[in-house]
């Protein structure tokens, strides 16, 4: 048997834009799947609207449709391409819902399109919760006792069957939004009502609560010959009840006996077989801590977050293997990735441990609710390897948030005991910091295990860390203690802080004491530890196993690390393309990265791959052993770029921009001077360097050009930029941040309003190549990632364009840099202002690379390596052009509703983006909205709820919508204003007031689009937040700025016929 020859074209459906709970893991999984199928000789038809992923790149044998993943577009593509088969295992839950609809529509049967891999196109136990429950009951497997209800009348019956406490989950909500725990009848009814409102099917799953149990996951592979391999298992540090995506996970399982592990493995295999999986299946278990009781929580018969973790933890190309299984290969017909003569039919033997550390972007959203529970809030994750749990935890802590260097946070250390205990009972993303703090204050391991429901095993590990801190303080400059501290993962920075010396001093001391890191090769075959995978982790717990080659010139590329809000896979896209181009140019490539979801960390993408926190210590350790000729920090986003100066100081040869150049464009005052020197305009800037008694009494503060933009010291904390309108606002703002002096200096910028452009270029020392110009469709957006953009720019004059080029040339020359540049401009009254300059690959490159049909990144890398643009065929500072119009819009996710305090503090965040490309702006916008899952309604009711400063413009738009045949609904003051102006407006109550309120109207499908803008400042109102939540839950397009509404009106007007009576 070998791969199927009866298939030629295979349709692969991607996951679309990223949202919380379904993120960049599909970048790795999807890309590897597509590349594998194409290399196996199939013609791949790929549909994915996400421009930021490697998956939608141009590979040989792949036709990419960067189109919305909706029934309509899929049907059109399928009819056009007539694929032989469809593979849906790399698209997440949304895609599976969609292929079920495709099957129901009859299209797959009509065109005789087969399903390959696990059959996810039919209602079966792999796709349907009810059928899965029945199957488990039939097999007498211990599924967690649960039932689905949709009527309050069924509650008594449920209580009788489940007992207290009861977990409540709305059915089919994204990432489990709207669930909670009920401990009595009153709570249950309350949570039930909230959950039914949020479920698109008004259905709620109630289950027995297993809070406090350990959570274990298995990943099992199965081929069509029924061969299985339990390829991976891991244990969550956090108890069941915290979403597995929000939990620190360790592989392999840490605290169970072999007997327990084997019985879980058997169950996992049994379920995989019963679900008829061809490919990969993930099974989650809850394991009681006091008895042998085990519960099955969930089985997922497709690739997902844990698949990516497993693949990278093992150095095993799991997505590739799953793709080959889908086209008929057997596990033992696929070569092992690095053990010669061995096959993919293996189970690992770890001789290291791997820790997955979730990361949250709460810091980026003011007033975010950080409590963790049944709903996933993490926006990315990092992976660390070591040989003990202590080191894994410490590395994990400093890998996600690079401002943190140890298991210590000032905010946590400042809590009083009561607050600390409260945080431990209701865990937040800072739980592990709280545990460490409690241990420092002398809480016992047993008590903490009791309060936090975290196994004493892990708490003892944290205690070891805390004890070692004290030992370091007590034994300064002692080699033995230093050795142990490094063995258990302490950073040089933390040790030098405890020893009250500089890191350079410590580094010298450490090197003199011959305490040098080892590099262990990751191979997951403990019985054959000499096998080479070319993937390494840094540890002080074993010797060095890396032998550097001396034959070639080597380039070390610093990767971007974890996915964060504002940094998705688009940065990894640069890393991937950079590595590929460097390899083509004949260099040996070395990569430092730690993101399991990234495609760049796939097997063999770099010649040597290192997993470590992306900081100077790690880079210097790697550089010491690899001796790279050059280091590139331009292709790994902000975290890589930031290391430039430190690496330069240590004598490494950095290509691109120097640390000094970066400093000039990032330090507000230096930047202002740079612009002045070059006779360029920019917003006026002022810094507040120390606390003020009262801003309102300061003359200069009253004289600021309000509205102004302000943010605290970005080195200390990331906090979103806010708009202030008066000195009183400023005073209020400063008071909010006063607690922490490290927030100073605050930077104040003049808020300019005008046409905004983001321009990317490549500068070679003499010339510039403008690679892309994007125009913002919104005037008031604060962060470039939040803005709807169009490319090419619509209103840019030739003279303005040549001025823009001059800026690039002047800045490039002044800073003495080469390579990638990104400059944000604003045009106001025919004057060009420079808003910001960045000297690295921008987040737009992935998008640009796809629309220009030329590999910009490859070109930039050539320039970095010394080529001249002229030699590459680009003369006279050209601008790359594109045939189509492209609209990119942000995609929002929501932090989830708090389970305990009912509907408090929801906040919206951009987590991904969608793109629409077509011949006209309107069509492109239409597609972009579809891709972002915000389909435009053809008729129906539009809800307006706009901020006071938007009322007049809102009214004008509402009138235009009305003319197009839509009905207008509005809340409170919006409705009053509209009605007073003579516009027929239905009034609807705010949420939680009298019926019918907005919630009811939306969940009953009576509203087809929501236009909601908020006040400039201050917390989002509760109802405003819920309104957004509801819109997303019910797939009602949500428009949050009037500029966007304007664009939509254009689309709608362009496709409407004028229907007027004579």
């Amino acid at each position, binding site marked *: 048997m070998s791969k199927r020859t009866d298939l030629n074209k295979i349709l692969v459906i991607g996951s679309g834009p990223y949202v919380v709970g379904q993120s960049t893991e599909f970048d790795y999984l999807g890309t590897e799947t597509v590349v594998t199928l194409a290399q196996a000789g199939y013609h791949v038809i790929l549909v994915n609207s996400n421009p930021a992923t490697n998956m939608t790149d141009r590979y040989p044998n792949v036709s990419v449709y960067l189109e919305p993943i909706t029934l309509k577009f899929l049907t059109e593509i399928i009819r056009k391409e007539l694929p032989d088969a469809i593979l849906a295992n790399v698209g997440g839950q949304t895609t599976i819902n969609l292929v079920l609809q495709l099957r129901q529509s009859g299209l797959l049967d009509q065109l005789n399109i087969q399903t390959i891999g696990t059959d996810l196109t039919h209602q079966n136990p792999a796709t349907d919760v009810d059928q899965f429950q029945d199957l488990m009951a039939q097999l007498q497997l211990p599924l967690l006792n649960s039932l689905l209800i949709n009527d309050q009348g069924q509650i008594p019956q449920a209580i009788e069957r489940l007992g207290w406490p009861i977990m409540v989950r709305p059915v089919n909500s994204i990432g489990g939004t709207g669930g909670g725990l009920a401990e009595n009848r009153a709570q249950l009814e309350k949570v039930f009502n909230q959950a039914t409102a949020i479920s698109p099917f008004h259905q709620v799953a109630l289950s027995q609560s297993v809070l406090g149990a350990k959570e274990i996951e298995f990943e099992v592979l199965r081929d069509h010959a029924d061969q299985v391999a339990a390829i991976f298992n891991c244990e969550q540090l956090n108890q069941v009840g915290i979403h597995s995506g929000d939990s620190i996970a360790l592989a392999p399982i840490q605290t169970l006996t072999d007997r327990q592990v084997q019985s879980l493995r058997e169950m996992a295999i049994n379920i995989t077989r019963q679900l008829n999986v061809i490919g990969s299946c993930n099974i989650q278990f809850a394991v009681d801590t006091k008895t042998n009781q085990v519960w099955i929580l969930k089985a997922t018969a497709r690739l997902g977050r844990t698949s990516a973790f497993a693949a990278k933890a093992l150095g095993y190309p799991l997505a590739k293997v799953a793709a080959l299984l889908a086209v008929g290969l057997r596990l033992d017909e696929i070569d092992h990735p690095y053990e010669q*003569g061995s096959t993919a039919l293996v189970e690992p033997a770890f001789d290291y441990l791997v820790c997955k550390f979730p990361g949250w972007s709460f810091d980026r959203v003011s007033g975010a609710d950080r409590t963790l529970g049944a709903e996933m809030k993490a926006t990315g994750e990092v992976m660390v390897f070591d040989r003990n749990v202590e080191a894994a935890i410490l590395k994990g802590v400093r890998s996600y948030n690079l401002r943190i260097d140890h298991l210590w946070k000032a905010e946590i250390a400042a809590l009083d005991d009561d607050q600390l205990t409260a945080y431990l009972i209701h865990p937040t993303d800072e739980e592990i910091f709280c545990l460490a703090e409690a241990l420092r204050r002398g809480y016992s391991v047993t008590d903490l295990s009791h309060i936090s429901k975290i196994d004493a095993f892990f708490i003892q590990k944290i205690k070891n860390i805390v004890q070692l801190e004290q030992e370091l303080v007590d034994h300064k400059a002692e080699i033995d203690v230093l050795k142990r501290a490094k063995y258990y993962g302490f950073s040089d920075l933390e040790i030098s802080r405890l020893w009250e010396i500089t890191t350079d001093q410590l580094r010298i001391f450490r090197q003199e004491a011959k305490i040098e890191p080892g590099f262990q090769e990751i191979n997951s075959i403990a019985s054959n530890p000499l096998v080479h995978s070319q993937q390494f982790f840094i540890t002080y717990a074993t010797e060095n196993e890396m032998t550097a080659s001396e034959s070639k010139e080597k380039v070390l590329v610093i990767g971007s690390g974890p996915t964060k809000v504002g940094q998705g896979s688009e940065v990894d896209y640069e890393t991937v393309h950079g590595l590929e181009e460097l390899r083509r140019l004949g260099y040996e490539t070395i990569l430092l990265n730690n993101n399991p979801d990234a495609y760049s960390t796939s097997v063999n993408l770099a010649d040597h791959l290192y997993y470590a926190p992306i900081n100077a210590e790690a880079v210097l350790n790697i550089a010491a052993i690899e001796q790279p000729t050059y280091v590139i920090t331009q292709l790994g986003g902000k975290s890589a770029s930031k290391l430039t100066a430190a690496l330069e100081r240590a004598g490494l040869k950095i290509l691109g921009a120097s640390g000094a150049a970066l400093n000039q464009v990032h330090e507000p005052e230096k930047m202002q001077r740079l612009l002045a020197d070059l006779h360029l305009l920019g917003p006026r800037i002022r810094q507040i360097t120390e606390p003020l008694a009262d801003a309102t009494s300061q003359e200069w503060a009253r004289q600021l050009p309000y509205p102004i933009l302000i943010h605290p010291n970005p080195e200390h904390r990331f906090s979103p930029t806010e708009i202030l309108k008066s000195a009183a606002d400023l005073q209020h703002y400063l008071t909010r941040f006063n607690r922490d002096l490290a927030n100073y200096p605050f930077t104040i910028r003049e808020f300019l309003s005008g046409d905004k452009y983001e321009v990317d270029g490549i500068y070679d020392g003499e010339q510039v190549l403008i690679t892309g110009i994007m125009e913002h469709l919104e005037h008031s957006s604060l962060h470039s990632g939040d803005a709807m953009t169009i490319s090419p720019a619509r209103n840019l004059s030739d003279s303005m364009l040549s001025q823009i080029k001059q800026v690039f040339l002047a800045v490039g020359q002044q800073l003495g840099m080469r390579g990638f540049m990104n400059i944000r401009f604003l045009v106001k009254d025919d004057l060009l202002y420079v808003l910001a300059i960045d000297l690295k690959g921008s987040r737009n490159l992935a998008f640009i690379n796809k629309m220009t049909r030329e590999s910009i990144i490859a070109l930039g890398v050539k320039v970095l390596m010394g080529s001249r643009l002229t030699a590459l065929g680009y003369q006279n500072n050209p601008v790359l052009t594109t045939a189509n119009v492209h609209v990119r819009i942000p995609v929002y996710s929501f932090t989830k509703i708090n389970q305990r305090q009912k509907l408090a503090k929801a906040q919206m965040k951009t987590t991904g983006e969608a793109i629409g490309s077509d011949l006209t702006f309107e069509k492109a916008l239409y597609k972009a909205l579809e891709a972002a899952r915000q389909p435009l309604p053809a008729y129906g009711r539009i809800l307006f709820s706009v901020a006071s400063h938007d009322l007049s413009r809102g009214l004008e738009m509402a009138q235009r919508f009305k003319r197009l045949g839509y009905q207008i609904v509005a809340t409170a003051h919006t409705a009053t204003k509209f009605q007073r102006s003579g516009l027929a407006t239905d009034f609807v109550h705010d949420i939680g007031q009298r019926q019918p309120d907005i919630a009811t109207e939306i969940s009953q499908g009576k509203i087809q689009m929501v236009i909601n803008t908020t006040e400039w400042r201050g917390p989002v109102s509760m109802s405003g937040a819920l309104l957004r939540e509801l819109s997303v839950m019910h797939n009602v397009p949500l428009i949050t700025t009037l500029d966007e509404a304007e664009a939509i009106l254009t689309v709608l007007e362009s496709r409407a016929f004028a229907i007027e009576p004579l």
Partner: protein
Amino acid sequence: MKRYLILEDGTVFPGNAFGARINTTGELALYTGATGYQETITNDNYTGQIVAFTYPQQGATGINRDDYEAIQPTIKGMVIGENYQLPSHWQAQMTLDLFLQAQRIPGLMNVDTRRLARHIAKYGNMKASFMDTHDAHAHDQIKALVIANNQVNQVSTKQPFPSPNIGKNVVVIDLGLKNTVLRELSKRQCNVTVLPFDTDSGMINTIAPDGILVSNGPGKPEALTKTIATLKTVQERYPIFGIGLGFAVMALVNDVPVLPRKVSQHRINLAVREKITQNTNFAAQNSSFYLPELPANSDLFVTHVAVNHQEVLGYRHRYLPNFAINFDPEAAAGPRDTLHFFDDFIDLMDANISRKQRLE
């Protein structure tokens, strides 16, 4: 307390002592499972060996009453990375440290077992000693030490003993029997008599069992001349099931030589393929010998092979109801995918009984 593991080639691995503070010497065995240390250190297949664990953390689940494979462990020492001293498991009755102290077995922790495993992978099996110092004198001592060749003798029961039940009458030849093997036979209601390794055929004929199981065990199969002679005499009369060392012994009974491994295998992730069905499963393996292939003229034929390396893992006799496998179907520790071999053994005995009845 600082102590050392010294290999016979003079390589030194420092660590900290736990368990009993005594000096011992034995052949080094590397166990590569991430779980199952209790089963492993009480497994008599490791008699006389110092067992090192490649997974860097051990001890988290303590020692419990259910996972002993023998009540009195016979290993010569345990070498690990991290030792988790405070077990956190509801079944734990004591710590690994206390258990080893009570059993007079030395342990060494905070050892770089990755370096150790790589050393053994490069240079092959070797003996090792626990020592308090690592000077030239210590090296000479370990070089001079000859490891006894009679591990089975040490560990096999001295007296026959019964494990009564109401089903098939089974004789188990104890070469280093694990509790779980008896448990699996017991689950199938076998009325078992465990006999010493040097039993003669007269004893077996007196019992006249429905079948014989030759267990796994430590040491070299060639040394078991008495066992081989006895089995040669009885192999035509009774169905026989050989496991591990029993696999090697039964090969020798049928004049098929086995080869010593450069690095003995102690793993719980061996992929096994059954030739006739092409079914694959994962199994535990404790094996110092292997069978690359069967000679063409042999009475044995191959039933199981390794998926990932060239190696015979199971054979059957062409004419007699005998079969053997070179892995551990009883697992403990490890996956229990191949427990069905005990059923196969029962079936074999059933078939033999009906054959005999037909003949009569």
